């Protein structure tokens, strides 16, 4: 019998005014899984993630994280999640170290453990020199690293990563991938949202594709790849999300530029 899912999404609906962003989404993420969450722009990925992390209240359905219902037990559910938001928001007038200490404090990580984890993560991402400076002065990649550190330092059971490799240099991206794989191997669940299909194809054990607020595919990576003759995720993605459009528009654009 497989372990209980760490993340369970059932019949999720979300509406912004008249616009239906999510139309009855189902999926689960079990311990040890790295699930790629894909979709074209506006498909509802970020909306799903905001509901999962308790930032938005859904119009219908339920989300359970580590057995806690996000709607009723929001704080308990949030405590299980390590979240890297898409645009890496952080308080820019704090130093990296101050920001990490704040996050550790808010997650109630004991101070000695917080200190050790912060030191370890800072060293891992080679941020020793940068960490005492104001985040305001950071490059995009440095800011991304600090937000990654913040997501990892309370040792979450569920990782929700929205474009986590955005702006990272090659070495840091490699480290993040290794960490994600390693944590999954130790029983953590990972939801990996990205537009970089090559990375998703290599890293994820299962892939969910979302289009116009609906799940259009939810299969292990190998099975998804088998849907196209060239065994390529990009082809499958194109088929599932915009099957009728070809390259003619692009050719016109290139000619015009």
């Amino acid at each position, binding site marked *: 019998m497989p372990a209980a899912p760490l993340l369970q999404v059932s019949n999720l609906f979300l509406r912004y005014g008249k616009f239906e962003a999510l139309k009855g989404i189902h999926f689960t993420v079990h311990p040890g899984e790295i699930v790629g969450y894909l979709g074209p722009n506006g498909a509802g990925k970020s909306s799903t993630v905001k509901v999962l992390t*308790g*930032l938005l209240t859904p119009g219908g359905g339920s989300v359970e994280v580590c057995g806690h219902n996000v709607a009723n037990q929001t704080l308990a559910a*949030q*405590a299980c999640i390590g979240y890297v938001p898409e645009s890496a928001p952080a308080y820019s*007038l704090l130093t990296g170290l101050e920001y990490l200490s704040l*996050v550790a404090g808010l997650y*109630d990580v004991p101070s000695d453990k917080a200190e050790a984890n912060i030191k370890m993560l800072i060293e891992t991402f080679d941020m020793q020199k940068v960490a005492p400076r*104001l985040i*305001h002065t950071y490059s995009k990649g440095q800011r991304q690293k600090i937000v990654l550190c913040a997501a990892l330092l309370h040792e979450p059971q569920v990782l929700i990563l929205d474009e986590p490799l955005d702006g990272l240099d090659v070495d840091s991206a490699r480290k993040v991938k290794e960490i994600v794989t390693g944590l999954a191997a130790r029983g953590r669940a990972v939801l990996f949202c990205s537009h970089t299909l090559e990375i998703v194809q290599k890293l994820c054990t299962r892939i969910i594709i979302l289009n116009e607020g609906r799940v259009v595919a939810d299969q292990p990576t190998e099975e998804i790849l088998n849907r196209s003759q060239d065994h390529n995720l990009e082809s499958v993605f194109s088929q599932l999300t915009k099957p009728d459009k070809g390259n003619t528009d692009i050719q016109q654009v290139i000619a015009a530029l």
Partner: protein
Amino acid sequence: MSTKPSHFRLLLRTFLLMDLRGQHYARATGAKPGELIPPLYWVIGQYLFISAVTAIALFGRVDVLPYTFVMLTLSALLSISAVVVEFNEVALNFTDTQVIGHIPVHRRAYAAARIANLIFYLLLFSVALVIFPAIIGAALRGSDWSYTLVYAFAACCANLIFPLLAILLYTLRPPEPDKSDFRDVMAWTQIVLALVVFYGAQMMLRDGQHRLEMFLSYPPAWMHWVPTWWLAQWVTEMVQGNAPAGLLWGAVIALLTVALLAFTLYRLASFYRAIRTGYEHLSAERTPAPSRGIQLLSGWLASGRAQRSSVQFVLLLLRRDPDLRMRMLPQVATLAALVLLGLMTGQMGNPFAGGGSTAQSPSMAIAVVQILVISVPMLMHNFLYSRDFESSWLLWSAPAGPRGSLHAHSVRRVVLWLVVLPVCLVLGLVFAWRWQDPVSALLHLGLGWLQCVIISYVALEGIGLKVPFSEPLAKGGLSGKVAPLLAAVATGATFLGFLEFFAAQKLLYTAIFAVLLLCLFAFAKFKDGGSFVFQKNNLSKS
């Protein structure tokens, strides 16, 4: 999970630290700190100055009760004004949701930290507003040193109660953060009240009939319904009357303040939760395309494609950014209120008509135009700030001259032609109607317009406006940073106002005054044009 004191402490410490750092480091680009004197310091300075001048103006002229009433009202008004005008920075902070919204912090702990942050800010203002009236009030006849303590307590309560009520009113409406109707109403209310107070203060000093002192000492019946009057009565009772009974009322006031704090905390906690959804709703709404009018206006105000785009962008944000409109409102509203006061008090005489014993004083007619001149730098300064300041990379990186002069000039043109000119036209109509003399009205406003144009060039340098919408609004940044320039401009404008007053006596003097303004205008344009050409050369060389 329940509310944790440790979360409250951590968040409060973080918010305070960021507020103080924001005074120097809130910049879109680069790590270079700002000026040595923080903007908040100028605001504190202004509050100290205003309260000192008002307290000294009343010192010896009125008794304890009217003195306390005026000082408490002024103090409460300025506190509300600080909260309302910079509401998003002070009471709400929309970035918190993005940064810590997903972290398990109880919303009451978060709201408590934000309220405590606000209280720190209000207490800082309160200290500035309390020092002079509390100490000088102790030296009033019939007062003693107990006044200092009692007044300080009452003023701190007033400075908390009224802004908290404003926040409560704000949170009673649906959470749509970009709708500014409520803040418009609040801003207008406080502008009108502030004008009444300031107008009263200046009238008191020069009114031989002592109408204000009489009004305050023999107040009409409705005055007994004004909450600051109740507080003033309590302070007077404590100092001059029955202190033990007053202590009981003091406890009631303290209890009310605490209860109001608790209720605001409760409302804010719910409001913060609801506001997230509100934002998402807004983001899903379709925004109307820029109107044809904006395109036509930008074509008219700018020459060249780049300048046109820049002007169009400034116009578009002027139309869509409610914070920007909110920041501009006080300047325009002040003028409207001054015109009304001038008309009602018979000080809107024609300066060019020649004096006579029956003629109305032209003081307010001249003052209104000078206030318009003084407001030009402030209006331009408002364009420096935006919640989307990080997006200003686009303007920084676009080829707009090494110092962003293209965009700065766009702001200058938009302010002059779309804010100042319409105001001038309306003022011209009012003067023409009042004086029954359109030529004098045209001359008066023409001279005023010329001064506005000159000041707009001065403001470009003085406020360091390079790229609009490129800075986050630090607490006190709005009025604090520009205060030294405004003081200088106000001095210059007052001097020009006096010159016009005397020049209006004879046509020849008026002509000399006009020539002087034209020379100043030519000099300002030459200086600006010179630097612009220099920048262009540098750009082409690089």
